[in-house]
């Protein structure tokens, strides 16, 4: 590991000196430092900042402090009751040990697990801009089918972020240039020609909280994750959904997919297609297909198209059945 200086942050607006990065739980950052993929000059520890509260918002929303640990958010009674998709997504990710340390802000900012990115000795446009992307013709079974570019086909690995995208959550950011609010769906970039930038955050900007707005029908929401083993593995595809059915008709729906793109993929086109239509299996599949029409699979990941179509249909059917009971 490259040497670094260590200091603790005093206020969220402190910012960062050149070459510095924030340290929260560190479950991804410390690993990337061991691998030589992350080589910060300075670590600025934000764990002492008072950012771990989960607070009620007017009307039934929640403000989740960026420092709140994944395990505490997953276990929070309000999250489990009002936004079960978020608790389920968190519990589907990582292990008990990792969830006890990983933070809400850090979970959003974790890096891709693309094997070429994780290997400093390999070319990768994300860790070494301009060096090329071996994944496009190499091992890309787990990688993107939507929104990728010639220079990067990485996926965002978070489960939590998929639930937050479905719920229409926003991210509160603080920094030397002031505070701002960013929708979770606009936090992560598509890779384009600059895949080295995962998000729209500027150097020194710190996520201080995630706000989940009131969404009454989200008490009927769920997360389903497909992976290569029963537990403790990253997704090859996942679905976060909330469904509001009235008299057999879809009044409203929220749908997002994981492990298909450089960001958690809110399926806006599928949602638009479903609103006002019958809550039937055929309509659910047709809506998934509207969204998947934009997919550009690689040699070995076209299976994700059918996987997402079937998972989306099954998840929405289950939510619709729950509504009938």
């Amino acid at each position, binding site marked *: *590991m490259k*040497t*670094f*200086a*260590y200091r603790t942050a005093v206020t969220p607006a402190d910012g960062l000196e050149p070459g510095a990065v924030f*340290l929260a739980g*560190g*479950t991804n950052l*410390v*690993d990337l430092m*061991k691998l030589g993929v992350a080589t910060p000059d300075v*670590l600025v*520890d934000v*764990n002492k900042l008072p950012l771990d509260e989960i607070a009620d918002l007017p009307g039934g929303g929640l403000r989740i402090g960026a420092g709140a640990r994944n*395990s505490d958010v*997953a*276990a929070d009674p309000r999250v*489990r009751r009002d936004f079960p998709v978020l*608790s*389920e997504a968190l*519990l*589907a990710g*990582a*292990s*008990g*040990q*990792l969830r*006890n*340390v990983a933070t809400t802000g850090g979970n959003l900012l974790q890096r891709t697990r693309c094997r070429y990115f994780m290997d400093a000795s390999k070319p990768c446009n994300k860790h070494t801009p301009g060096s090329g992307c071996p994944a496009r013709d190499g091992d890309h079974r787990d990688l993107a089918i939507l929104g990728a570019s010639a220079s990067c086909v990485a996926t965002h690995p978070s489960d939590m972020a998929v639930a937050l995208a479905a719920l229409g959550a926003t991210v509160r950011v603080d920094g030397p240039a002031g505070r701002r609010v960013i929708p979770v769906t606009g936090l992560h970039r598509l890779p384009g020609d600059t895949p080295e930038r995962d998000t729209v955050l500027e150097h020194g900007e710190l996520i201080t909280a995630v706000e989940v707005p009131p969404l009454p029908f989200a008490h009927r929401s769920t997360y389903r994750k497909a992976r290569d083993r*029963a*537990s*403790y593995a990253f997704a090859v595809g996942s679905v976060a959904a909330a469904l509001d059915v009235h008299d057999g008709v879809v009044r409203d729906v929220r749908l997002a997919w994981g492990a298909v793109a450089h960001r958690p993929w809110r399926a806006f086109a599928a949602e638009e297609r479903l609103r006002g239509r019958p809550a039937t299996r055929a309509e659910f599949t047709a809506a998934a297909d509207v969204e998947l029409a934009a997919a550009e699979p690689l040699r070995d990941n076209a299976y994700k198209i059918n996987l997402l179509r079937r998972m989306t249909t099954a998840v929405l059917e289950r939510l619709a059945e729950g509504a009938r009971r």
Partner: protein
Amino acid sequence: MRLTVNGTEHVLDLDPRTTLLDALREHLGLTGAKKGCDHGQCGACTVLLDGRRVNSCLLLAIAHQDSHVTTIEGLDGHPVQRGFLEHDGFQCGYCTPGQICSAVGMLDEVDRGWPSAAADDDPLSDAEIRERMSGNLCRCGAYPHMVPAIRQAAGR
């Protein structure tokens, strides 16, 4: 820097790169926690940090000077240890300190009512214990004996 381990405060002169695992093993002589993968994937390094189970290989010691660390050496005759002995919950023993620390943390999580992805009605069913312990790997495959060992430790 300062580290409090199993109730004793130590003052150490360490490089900021030192992980909690390396501080325990290489500088305090506490070699119970093991370095399996060193990437947070196997759980062999599991210790309790302020009572919560964590992967000590992914924590920088310098960032945890105010915490209380409990290692396997600090769990003297814990019911989980007795359960592992009585149910033969190991073969080679390499993963065992991590398994036991993880089980101790896990049972506390169950007591606090924390859910798991298994979502069974009984938080100590076979499926629940396996899901909750999925962050600890065992190359010998001693899992079938660990499940009743952990359930026994919970008084069941």
